[in-house]
């Protein structure tokens, strides 16, 4: 049982780390703000989520587990709100058409 839990931890945390890798690479390599936003949301939601899932078997008790899940929910909430805000600022500063048409390196 312990072993199974440990395997779960290793798999999930590794998965979380992978999504952080993916998110970071996306942040760095994707050409414009909106696609980068797409990368960000994956890292946010799944990265933290999988780390939380991985740590659940290591938690000392139900309270800790609940707090872990709560942290994830907060991250989900803030992630979605922030991506909304980012998208809106992008749309507000330059219209979507502009941003898409010009492709990489959005206008300042």
């Amino acid at each position, binding site marked *: 049982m312990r072993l199974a839990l*440990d395997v779960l*931890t*290793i798999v999930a*945390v*590794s998965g*979380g*780390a992978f999504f*952080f*890798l993916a*998110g*970071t690479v996306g*942040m*760095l390599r994707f050409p414009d*703000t909106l696609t*980068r*936003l797409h990368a*960000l949301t994956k*890292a*946010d939601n799944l*990265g*933290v989520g999988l*780390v*939380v899932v991985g*740590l659940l078997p*290591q938690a*000392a008790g139900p309270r*800790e587990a609940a*707090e*872990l899940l*709560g*942290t994830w929910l*907060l*991250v989900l*909430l*803030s*992630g979605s*709100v*922030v*991506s909304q*805000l*980012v998208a*809106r*600022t*992008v749309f*507000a*500063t330059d219209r979507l058409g502009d941003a898409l048409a010009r492709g990489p*390196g*959005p206008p*300042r």
Partner: protein
Amino acid sequence: MTAFLTASLGFILVMLALGLVRILHGPRDADRMMAAQLIGSAGIASTLLLGAVNRSPATIDVAFTLGLLATFASIAFVKKGLSRLEVEDPGSAGDA
């Protein structure tokens, strides 16, 4: 197990450091905001992992607090269009 968690923690920290490059390049505030958000999430994940490594349950409180405040920087970023003396016209405030 501790060694694995520590290594994952180190990996996520390196990812976090790479995210800095985006803050560096921008080119605009929206990108910086996202990079900051990514750094925030990575920081929260790191804090959780560090708590597990150190076996200190109170550390989750720190991660929880960070999660609670994770939106703050971004909100301040978008609200700044409004943070003027009240004499200014609030009509252009559609971006928030």
